[in-house]
């Protein structure tokens, strides 16, 4: 047993017990105040991993890994000399000796002790509550255990229909279980919503295929022969047959450690602290987060108040420096993070304030229920939003003030009132825009005006706003834009030196005015100096791509080598092949889904042999043939087209491949025919020109052999259909795709992808992959889901029609080219010697194939810009 008694003169020690979300924030607050430099800081962390994002726990089931959830930057810990003991909880506190003894036997002397032990899930004392198959929902380990057990289960029940219960139920459903929710109160989310909201919520939840039982308690867990859960008895005498149970019946503060060392706790638990978060019993001990009973007599079960307490405690410890903060209470606004359900409540949602009035809008057909609670003087006090929580960010920030427009106009659906909603511009500077991190509108404006942030990611980094639940990001984006505009910061969002418009704006111009010519667009809409000019290498291909995407609806030729369009294409598109380093080209025929019959393999082999090409299987599940000269391309393609091959668009900003795994046809685990779906999708979207390349994959089960979660749109089979993921990326900045929708039928899947792709093509910047686009657009994934799943902009019919036009108008561009003698004249090395090959293109043998014989160079290879095709334009 080691003992650490502080040597005289050594730095004073702060010991933090509990490394959860609030504990981590406390460490950051210490570091910000310079206390990590003047103090020894020891952290005892019970869980096997350092602090992670518990709020986002459920996103583990939609593909985020434990690493993604981590909130602990080890560099931060190391840089500040923090001693972090992972998997080593505090067992005993001796307040007289001022020591903490950890489970490992280590003893730490403290000057200041901070308890941030959080909560434990409350499990009602029903018989067999600890049987095999009973779980709680609090930690990553809980989730891992649930996931494992669910593999052998068909039916599950969640006890508790509150915020977390619904999240847990959504997770069980996502794991393929028939899911029941048992709630003792007469409605779901009883704490947050009122009866009207509860009724709307019930319809939505039932509509998702979950079975809800309200107004009943759990009497007993029934176990089978092996002692594992087989069912449950409810208080009305009925029985549910279930294979597993998740308790989510509320939380209780973890205050045992405090009780054991004689600190005062509240009647219903929670370590009693004052406004500085100091325990009322001992000035050397603080308590913060869910384990604390705040000075206002409440235990807060949300992260935002915990963060505020962390800051308060850090300030109190730094009090010598004169800083004083007080924690006097916090806002209880919440938004449900459940796929496809929009529920939010904020402020005084239940209207408990003396003399307050309600403004209610309800449409039960649409599952909409919105209520605002307004004071006699017009002050917005709180509200409940079910079915459409779009206005949550703004309303929450307005709470406590008199909104500049009538309360009705704030809840009525858009367009029903001329009030035109209410933008965040109307918010006062004190309005708290990000309640998780307590960031005001004033602070966000300051980030732009004083700290020179110009983008949402920069503002997030600078202020921490938007980094927790994400519900404020949309408002954040609007504020940043407004502030940039107001402060006169000239943000030239123009596409390039020729156009002051963004790609999105040009798209709208081309679409609405049916412009089919680049020169026409440049001469009418270009910047003054650019009109009548030659344009540049940035806007030419970008406009060519917009015209190609919209070709069928604006009446342009869909063929990229037609007329003026030919001059706009990048060299790859111009040759319908990929230029290689020595001036030769590669040829990639489409192999939909990666499935290829032996006869076609033989054709490729014969062609490669006859033309002396290098062959390689690509990372996109198809075959690339390298080393073709410009004049060979038509000859090669004539044979490929003859054998039934089409262009693979490896050269285009267009759909590349839809990879597949073998799926249910062959694989013992497969639950759907992933190959067929991959082929269908690849054939549907082939030839679609887009702001950047598009990649996709379809996996036959959750084992994900096709790597769908790294694709622009990825599809994973479930027992009930397909899960659709969007915004994934490999490449230089990998990003896991986000789950957009679950358990879709074939038709629903295709419809959502149609809408998603067309919305992306419409609104993305040039060379912006879906991953970057999804991170950039205000509102992010939620907004995209609102638009493509819930049709919040009312444009889905149009998006679908655009895709139908694309599908109907598709023609293979190589078949068209080999049949057009005029176009073929361009496939020569020399305009004055069409039969002479380019002598610079030469090869030497390597491993039974060829490789380029590169000329010796006087100067080195230095890329000008656009090293990555996706990097920012010059």
């Amino acid at each position, binding site marked *: 047993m080691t003992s650490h008694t502080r040597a005289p003169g050594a730095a004073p020690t702060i010991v933090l017990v509990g490394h959860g979300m609030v504990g981590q924030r406390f460490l950051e607050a210490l570091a910000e105040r310079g206390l990590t430099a003047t103090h020894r800081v020891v952290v005892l962390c019970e869980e096997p991993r350092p602090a992670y994002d518990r709020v986002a726990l459920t996103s583990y089931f939609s593909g985020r890994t434990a690493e993604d959830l981590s909130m602990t930057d080890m560099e931060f810990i190391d840089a500040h000399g923090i001693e972090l003991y992972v998997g080593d909880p505090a067992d005993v506190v001796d307040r007289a000796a001022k020591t903490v003894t950890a489970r490992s036997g280590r003893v730490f002397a403290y000057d200041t002790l901070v308890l941030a032990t959080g909560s434990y899930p409350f499990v009602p004392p029903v018989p067999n509550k600890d049987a095999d198959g009973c779980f709680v929902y609090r930690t990553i380990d809980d989730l891992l255990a649930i996931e494992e057990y669910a593999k052998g289960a068909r039916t599950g029940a969640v006890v508790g229909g509150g915020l977390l219960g619904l999240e847990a139920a959504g997770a069980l459903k996502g794991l393929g279980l028939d899911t029941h929710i048992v709630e003792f109160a007469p409605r779901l989310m009883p704490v947050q919503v009122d009866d009207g909201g509860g009724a709307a919520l019930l319809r939505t939840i039932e509509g998702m295929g979950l079975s809800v039982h309200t107004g009943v308690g759990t009497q007993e867990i029934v176990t089978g022969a092996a002692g594992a859960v087989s069912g449950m008895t409810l208080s009305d005498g009925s029985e549910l047959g279930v294979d597993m149970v998740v308790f989510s019946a509320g939380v209780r503060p973890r205050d045992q450690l405090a009780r054991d060392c004689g600190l005062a706790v509240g009647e219903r638990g929670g370590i009693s602290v004052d406004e500085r978060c100091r325990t009322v019993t001992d000035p050397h001990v603080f308590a913060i987060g869910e384990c604390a009973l705040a000075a206002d007599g409440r235990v807060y079960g949300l992260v935002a108040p915990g963060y505020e307490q962390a800051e308060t405690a850090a300030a109190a410890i730094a009090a010598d420096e004169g800083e004083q903060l007080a924690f006097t209470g916090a806002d209880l606004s919440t938004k449900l993070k459940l796929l496809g359900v929009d529920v939010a409540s904020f402020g005084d949602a239940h209207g408990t304030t003396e003399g307050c009035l309600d403004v209610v809008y309800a449409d039960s057909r649409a599952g909409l229920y919105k209520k605002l609670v307004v004071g006699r003087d017009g002050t917005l006090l709180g509200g409940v939003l079910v079915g459409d929580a779009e206005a949550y960010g703004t309303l929450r920030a307005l709470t406590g003030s008199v909104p500049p427009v009538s309360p009705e106009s704030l809840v009525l659906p858009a367009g029903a009132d001329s009030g035109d909603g209410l933008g965040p511009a109307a918010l006062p500077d004190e309005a708290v825009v990000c309640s998780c991190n307590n960031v005001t509108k004033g602070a966000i404006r300051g980030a732009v005006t004083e700290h020179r942030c110009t983008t949402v990611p920069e503002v997030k980094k600078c202020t921490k706003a938007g980094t927790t639940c994400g519900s404020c990001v949309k408002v954040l984006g609007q504020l940043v834009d407004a502030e940039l505009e107001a402060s006169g910061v000239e943000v030239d969002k123009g596409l390039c030196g020729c156009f002051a418009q963004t790609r999105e704006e040009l798209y709208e111009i081309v679409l609405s005015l049916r412009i089919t010519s680049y020169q026409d667009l440049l001469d009418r809409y270009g910047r003054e100096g650019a009109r009548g000019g030659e344009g540049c290498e940035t806007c030419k291909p970008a406009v060519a791509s917009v015209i190609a995407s919209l070709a069928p609806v604006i009446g342009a030729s869909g063929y990229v080598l037609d007329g003026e369009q030919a001059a706009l294409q990048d060299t790859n598109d111009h040759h319908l092949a990929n230029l290689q380093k020595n001036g030769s080209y590669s040829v990639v025929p489409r192999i939909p889904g990666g499935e290829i019959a032996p006869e076609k393999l033989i054709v490729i082999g014969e062609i490669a042999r006859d033309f002396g090409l290098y062959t390689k299987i690509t990372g996109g599940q198809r075959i690339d043939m390298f080393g073709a000269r410009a004049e060979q391309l038509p000859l090669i393609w004539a044979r490929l087209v003859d054998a039934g091959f089409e262009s693979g668009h490896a050269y285009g900003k267009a759909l590349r491949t839809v990879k597949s795994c073998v799926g249910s046809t062959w694989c013992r685990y497969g639950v759907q025919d992933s190959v067929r779906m991959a082929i269908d999708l690849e054939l549907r979207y082939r030839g679609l020109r887009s702001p950047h390349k598009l990649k996709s994959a379809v996996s036959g089960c959750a084992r994900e052999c096709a790597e769908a979660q790294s694709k622009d749109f990825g599809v994973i089979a479930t027992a009930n259909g397909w899960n659709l993921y969007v915004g994934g990326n490999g490449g230089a900045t990998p990003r896991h795709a986000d789950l957009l929708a679950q358990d879709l039928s074939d038709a629903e899947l295709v419809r959502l992808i149609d809408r998603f792709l067309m919305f992306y093509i419409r609104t993305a910047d040039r060379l912006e992959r879906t991953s970057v686009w999804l991170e950039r657009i205000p509102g992010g994934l939620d907004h995209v889901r609102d638009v493509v799943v819930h049709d919040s902009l009312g444009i889905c019919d149009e998006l679908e029609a655009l895709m139908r036009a694309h599908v109907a108008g598709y023609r293979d561009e190589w078949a068209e080219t080999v049949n057009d003698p005029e176009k073929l004249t361009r496939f020569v090395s020399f305009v004055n010697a069409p039969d002479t090959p*380019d002598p610079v293109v030469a090869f030497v043998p390597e491993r039974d194939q060829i490789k380029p014989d590169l000329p010796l160079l006087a100067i080195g290879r230095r890329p*000008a810009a656009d090293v990555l095709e996706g990097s920012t334009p010059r």
Partner: protein
Amino acid sequence: MTLAVETTTLKAQLRLAEGWFTACDVHALLPGRGAAVLLPDGRQVALFRDRAGRLYAIDNRDPFTGAAVLSRGLTGTHEGRPYVASPLLKQRFDLASGECLDDETVRVTAYEVRAA
């Protein structure tokens, strides 16, 4: 090096040491794109025609990669100067002077060209 062309029955000609060399029909050049021309001594020239019909000619070989590809780049104007961007690593070359706009130490040969 530049000349406006009125009709398309004309030939594009390059000035070489031995005199004017006929490359091709002017109308064989797509406005805004280039084409490669093989000279009798084996050198290659990238020949361009802009949307106003002006002709330009520079060496076809990209000095940064050694590949003969400048004729396949996209053209544009930068501060009034016409250029082509190499299709390989994207450096821009002034079509009139052959100067590299992204690296002043590099230049390719520019040829005098006319439509006749």
